[in-house]
C-alpha cells in the first residue's frame, strides 16, 4: 500500500509511476482533489529537461514582475497547465522527486532533497494555481504582512526540493530578512514558469528563496542568529532528524505541498521542529516525583509536570491515506488527532472535522462527549467504507461504554472535547455542563450563542494567517484543562465554593418567587461534581521484628515520626481513669519520698563512720528524725500511732513499694515492724492478687522472717490467726508462694519456740493448737496442685506436725508437703 517506502530502490521510476497511478485509486483521489481535473501523469524527466532548457532564458524579470493577483492566475494557470506538461500527479511525483535524489542514498528524510528543483517549482505552481481555495488564500495573504506570506508560501514548499540552492549558495546571505525575499527569487528563478503562468510569482519566489535558506541550513551553516522572528521560525522548521517512523514521515511529507499551502498546514511547521524535544521526552520521560523505594505508593507513569506525549495513532495513518473526498474550503484551526503527524494533509483534517459534524451521528443529547480516541475510531469506521451517512453504531456503544474518562479517573465528570475551536459553522457544541448549576448553564449557553456569530469568523481568519498558531497542541491544552478541573473537584461544595453555590441558590429562589404566581416548578437540584472522600492513608512497610519502621518517605507519604494514637473516651470513663491514675501517682509519690528517706537512713551508718566527732551528734539526731519520719509515713493519719493498714497495702500495691517495705522493715522499731507484718498477713490475699504480675512478694521473705523471729509467742499466735483470717483465706494463702512460706515460717518459729523453751506461752491458751490444727486440716484438704511450693521448707515442720497430728495424717502431710525428717 505504501509505495513510498520503496523509494530507496533503484528501480525504474516510470514504471512505478504509471503502475502506481493505474493501481491506486487513492492517488487519483488526491489528484482530483488537489489538482482538479486534468491532472495527468507525466514524465518528470521530460519536465526537467524542459525546465532546464528554460534556464537560459531571460529569467525572472517577466515572471517575477507579475505580482498579479492569484485569482487572476487561474486562467493563466489553466492555460499553462496543459502546455507545460509539468504536471505530475503529486503523490507519484513526490516519490519521483525523492528518487531523483536517491543517488545520494536518500533516506526517507524529507528535507534532504536535492535536484529536480524545477519540478518543485512546477509543483508549487500547480498547487498554487490549481485550487481556487489556495489561490484565494494566497490573495488574502498578499496584503498581509510580508513575512507571514512568505513564510506561508515557504512552508508550502517545505517538502519541495531546493533546486536553486546548489548553484548559488553564496548569494544567499544568512538569515534572510523579509525584504530580501524579493531579491533572491529574481536570481533564482530563471527557468521558472513562463511568464504568464506565474501567478504566484512572488510567492513562488519567496518559496524558493526559502528553499535556499532551507538548504543552507540543511548544509549545516552556523545556526542562524535569531535576528527576527522570521528567521526563528525558519530555524525551527523541523530540521532535526525526525526520528519517528520514516514511513510515516514520508507520508506526511508526501501529502502534497498543497496541503501545506493551505493555511491548515502552516501551523504545523514550527511544532515539527519541536518534535525533537518531544521525541526525546518520549524516550525518557523523567519521573519527577517517583519514590522507587520499597513501600512507597505506586508512581504514576507520567507525574504531573511532564507535558503530554503524543501517541502515534495508526488510525490516523489510515485516515490520511484514505480520506473521503471533502470540499477543501472550510477553514480549520484545530488539529484534530494528536498532532504527532503535524503534517496532516488538510484533506484529512477536513475530513475529520467535517464528517462528524456534518453528519452529526449522535442524538443531540449526546453532544460531543467523545474523546479523541473515539473520534478517530469513528472516522476509521467511516473511512473504512461505511455507507455514507450511517454512523458507526457498533463503535459508539463500545466507545461510550468503555469510555475511559478522558481525563482519567479522578474526575467525576467528563469534559467535552475541546477542539472545536473556531468552527463557526459547526452546530453549537455542547460541553459537559452537568456540574454547573442549571441557571449557570442557561446563562452560559445564551452567552455562547450571542458570541458565536460575530467574533468567530474574524478570529479564525486571523489565526489562519499566523504560522505560529497552535504551538500548544490540543493535547497540551486538554492536559492543562484537566489539571485545572482536578483542582475544582470538591468533596464539600458548600465549603469550597460557598459563594458560587449561594449565588445561584439565591438566583433560583428569586426566579421561583417571580414565577411563583404563575406556576409552581419544582426546585431544580444543584448537581455538583462530588468526589468521594477517599482516605488515602498510606501505611509504611514494616518488617516484623525490626526495631522501628523503615525510614521510607516520599512526597506522597511523608515520614510519620510519632505514632500518636488517639483514643476517644467518654467523660465518665475519663474521670474514673483519671482517679485511678491520680491515686497511683500518689502512691508512687509516697513511695519515692519514703525511698529517699530510707536511703538516707541506710546511708547513715556509712556517714556516721566517716563524719568527724563534732558532726556525729548532729548526724545522729538527723538519723533519728529520719527514722521517725519513715515510721510516720506509714501511718495514714498524723496523729494515729498505729501503722495504717491501708497505707501499707497501698504502698505494697506498687512493685517499688514492696521493695521499699522489704528494705524498710529492718529499720523499723519492732512494734511497728510487727504491725507491718501483721498488716501483710492480714491482707495477704489482696496483696497476692496485686502481686500476680510482679511476683515480687518474695522479696519480703527475708525481712519478714527476721521480724517473725523477734515476735513474742502471743504475737506469733496473733500472726498466725491473722494469716488464717477469714474463711478461705488460708486456701488462698496456700496458693501463694509467699503465703506458704510465711505460714511455714510462722509454724517453724512456733515450733522453735516450743522446742527450745518448754515453758513458752505458746501452749498457754489453745489458740496455737487450734490454729495449727486448722492449718493441718487445710493442708490436707487442699489439693496438691493448688499448693504452692514454698521458697524453702523449714526443717522443723515435721516435728511440729508430729506433735499435733496422728501418724496417718503425718504421713500424708509428709507426702504432700514433701517434708522429710532429714530435709534441711
Amino acid at each position: 500500500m505504501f509505495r513510498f517506502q520503496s523509494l530507496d530502490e533503484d528501480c525504474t521510476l516510470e514504471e512505478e509511476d504509471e503502475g502506481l497511478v493505474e493501481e491506486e485509486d487513492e492517488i487519483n483521489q488526491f489528484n482530483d482533489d488537489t489538482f482538479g481535473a486534468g491532472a495527468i501523469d507525466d514524465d518528470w524527466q521530460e519536465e526537467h529537461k524542459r525546465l532546464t532548457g528554460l534556464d537560459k532564458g531571460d529569467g525572472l524579470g517577466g515572471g517575477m514582475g507579475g505580482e498579479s493577483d492569484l485569482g487572476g492566475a487561474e486562467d493563466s494557470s489553466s492555460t499553462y497547465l496543459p502546455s507545460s506538461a509539468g504536471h505530475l500527479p503529486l503523490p507519484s511525483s513526490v516519490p519521483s522527486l525523492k528518487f531523483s535524489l536517491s543517488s545520494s542514498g536518500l533516506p526517507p528524510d524529507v528535507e534532504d532533497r536535492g535536484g529536480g528543483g524545477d519540478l518543485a517549482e512546477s509543483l508549487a505552481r500547480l498547487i498554487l494555481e490549481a485550487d481556487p481555495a489556495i489561490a484565494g488564500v494566497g490573495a488574502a495573504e498578499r496584503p498581509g504582512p510580508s513575512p507571514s506570506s512568505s513564510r506561508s508560501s515557504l512552508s508550502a514548499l517545505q517538502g519541495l526540493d531546493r533546486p536553486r540552492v546548489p548553484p548559488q549558495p553564496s548569494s544567499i546571505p544568512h538569515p534572510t530578512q523579509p525584504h530580501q525575499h524579493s531579491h533572491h527569487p529574481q536570481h533564482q528563478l530563471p527557468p521558472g514558469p513562463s511568464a504568464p503562468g506565474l501567478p504566484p510569482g512572488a510567492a513562488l519566489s519567496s518559496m524558493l528563496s526559502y528553499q535556499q535558506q532551507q538548504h543552507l541550513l540543511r548544509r549545516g551553516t552556523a545556526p542562524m542568529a535569531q535576528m527576527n522572528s522570521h528567521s526563528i521560525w525558519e530555524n525551527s522548521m523541523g530540521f532535526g532528524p525526525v526520528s519517528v517512523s520514516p514511513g510515516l514521515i514520508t507520508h506526511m511529507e508526501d501529502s502534497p505541498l498543497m496541503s501545506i499551502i493551505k493555511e491548515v498546514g502552516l501551523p504545523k511547521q514550527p511544532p515539527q521542529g519541536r518534535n525533537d524535544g518531544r521525541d526525546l521526552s518520549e524516550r525518557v520521560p523523567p519521573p519527577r516525583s517517583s519514590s522507587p523505594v520499597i513501600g512507597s505508593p505506586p508512581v504514576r507513569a507520567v507525574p504531573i509536570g511532564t507535558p503530554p506525549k503524543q501517541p502515534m495513532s495508526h488510525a490516523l495513518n489510515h485516515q490520511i491515506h484514505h480520506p473521503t473526498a471533502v470540499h477543501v474550503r472550510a477553514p480549520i484551526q484545530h488539529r484534530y488527532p494528536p498532532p504527532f503527524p503535524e503534517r496532516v494533509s488538510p484533506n484529512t483534517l477536513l475530513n475529520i472535522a467535517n464528517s462528524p459534524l456534518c453528519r452529526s451521528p449522535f442524538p443531540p443529547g449526546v453532544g460531543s462527549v467523545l474523546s479523541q480516541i473515539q473520534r478517530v475510531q469513528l472516522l476509521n469506521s467511516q473511512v473504512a467504507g461505511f455507507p455514507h451517512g450511517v454512523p458507526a453504531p457498533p463503535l459508539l456503544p463500545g466507545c461510550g461504554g468503555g469510555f475511559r474518562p478522558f481525563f482519567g479517573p479522578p474526575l467525576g465528570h467528563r469534559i467535552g472535547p475541546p477542539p472545536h475551536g473556531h468552527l463557526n459553522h459547526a452546530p453549537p457544541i455542547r460541553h459537559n455542563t452537568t456540574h454547573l448549576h442549571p441557571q449557570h448553564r442557561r446563562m452560559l449557553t445564551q452567552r455562547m450563542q450571542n458570541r458565536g456569530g460575530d467574533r468567530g469568523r474574524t478570529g479564525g481568519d486571523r489565526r489562519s494567517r499566523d504560522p505560529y498558531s497552535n504551538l500548544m497542541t490540543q493535547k497540551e491544552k486538554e492536559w492543562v484543562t484537566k489539571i485545572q478541573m482536578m483542582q475544582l473537584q470538591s468533596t464539600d461544595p458548600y465549603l469550597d465554593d460557598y459563594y458560587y453555590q449561594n449565588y445561584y441558590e439565591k438566583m433560583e429562589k428569586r426566579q421561583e418567587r417571580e414565577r411563583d404566581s404563575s406556576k409552581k416548578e419544582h426546585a431544580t437540584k444543584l448537581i455538583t461534581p462530588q468526589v468521594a472522600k477517599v482516605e488515602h492513608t498510606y501505611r509504611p512497610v514494616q518488617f516484623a521484628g525490626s526495631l522501628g519502621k523503615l525510614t521510607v518517605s516520599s512526597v506522597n507519604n511523608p515520614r510519620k515520626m510519632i505514632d500518636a494514637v488517639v483514643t476517644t473516651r467518654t467523660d465518665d470513663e475519663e474521670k474514673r481513669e483519671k482517679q485511678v491514675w491520680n491515686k497511683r501517682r500518689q502512691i508512687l509519690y509516697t513511695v519515692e519520698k519514703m525511698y529517699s528517706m530510707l536511703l538516707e537512713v541506710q546511708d547513715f551508718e556509712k556517714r556516721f563512720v566517716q563524719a568527724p566527732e563534732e558532726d556525729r551528734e548532729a548526724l545522729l539526731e538527723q538519723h533519728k528524725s529520719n527514722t521517725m519520719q519513715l515510721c510516720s509515713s506509714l501511718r495514714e493519719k498524723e496523729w494515729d500511732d498505729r501503722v495504717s493498714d491501708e497505707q501499707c497495702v497501698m504502698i505494697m500495691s506498687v512493685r517499688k513499694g514492696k521493695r521499699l517495705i522489704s528494705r524498710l522493715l529492718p529499720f523499723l522499731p519492732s512494734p511497728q515492724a510487727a504491725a507491718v507484718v501483721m498488716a501483710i498477713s492480714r491482707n495477704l490475699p489482696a496483696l497476692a492478687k496485686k502481686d500476680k504480675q510482679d511476683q515480687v512478694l518474695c522479696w519480703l521473705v527475708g525481712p519478714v522472717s527476721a521480724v517473725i523471729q523477734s515476735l513474742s509467742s502471743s504475737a506469733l499466735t496473733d500472726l498466725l490467726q491473722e494469716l488464717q483470717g477469714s474463711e478461705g483465706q488460708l486456701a488462698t494463702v496456700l496458693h501463694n508462694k509467699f503465703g506458704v512460706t510465711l505460714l511455714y515460717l510462722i509454724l517453724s518459729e512456733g515450733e522453735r519456740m516450743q522446742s527450745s523453751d518448754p515453758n513458752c506461752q505458746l501452749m498457754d491458751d489453745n489458740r496455737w493448737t487450734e490454729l495449727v490444727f486448722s492449718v493441718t486440716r487445710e493442708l490436707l484438704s487442699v489439693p496438691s496442685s493448688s499448693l504452692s511450693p514454698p521458697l524453702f521448707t523449714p526443717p522443723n515442720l515435721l516435728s511440729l506436725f508430729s506433735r499435733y497430728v496422728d501418724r496417718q495424717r503425718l504421713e500424708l502431710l509428709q507426702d504432700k508437703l514433701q517434708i522429710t525428717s532429714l530435709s534441711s
Partner: protein
Amino acid sequence: MNYVPGTASLIDDIDKKHLVLLRDGRTLIGYLRSIDQFANLVFHQTVERIHVGKKFGDIPRGIFIVRGENVVLLGEIDMEKPCDTVLQQVSIEEILEEQRLQQQAKQETDKVKMQALKDRGLAIPKADNLDEY
C-alpha cells in the same frame, strides 16, 4: 471556546496578542503561545514597552517565558479596536534615555525624602523588601 464552561481559563487566549504587566513593572506585549497550570506564559514576538510620560518605546525581545507568579495583569489586545492614544512612539534609545532620566529623578526625590525622614527619626521600608514579609 472554553473547554470548561463556567470557569476562567487562559486556554482561549492562546495565539492572541496580549499585554502583560509583570511584578517588576515591565510591560510585555506578545502573542501568547503556551500556558500551563501555574499560568506560566510563553510569549512570542514579545516586545517590551517602556512608558515614560507620554512617550513609549518598544524593544523587541523575541520569545519570553514568564513565570506565573510574576504576572500582575494579563489582557488580550484587541487588534481591531482603533488605536487612538495620545502616546507617542519613540525610538528605543530615546525611550531608554527617558527612562534613565526618570529613574534618576525618582532616586533623587527618594533620597531627599529618606533624608528628611531620617532627620525626623522615622523609617519607611522600601517596597522591594515588603515582599519578603
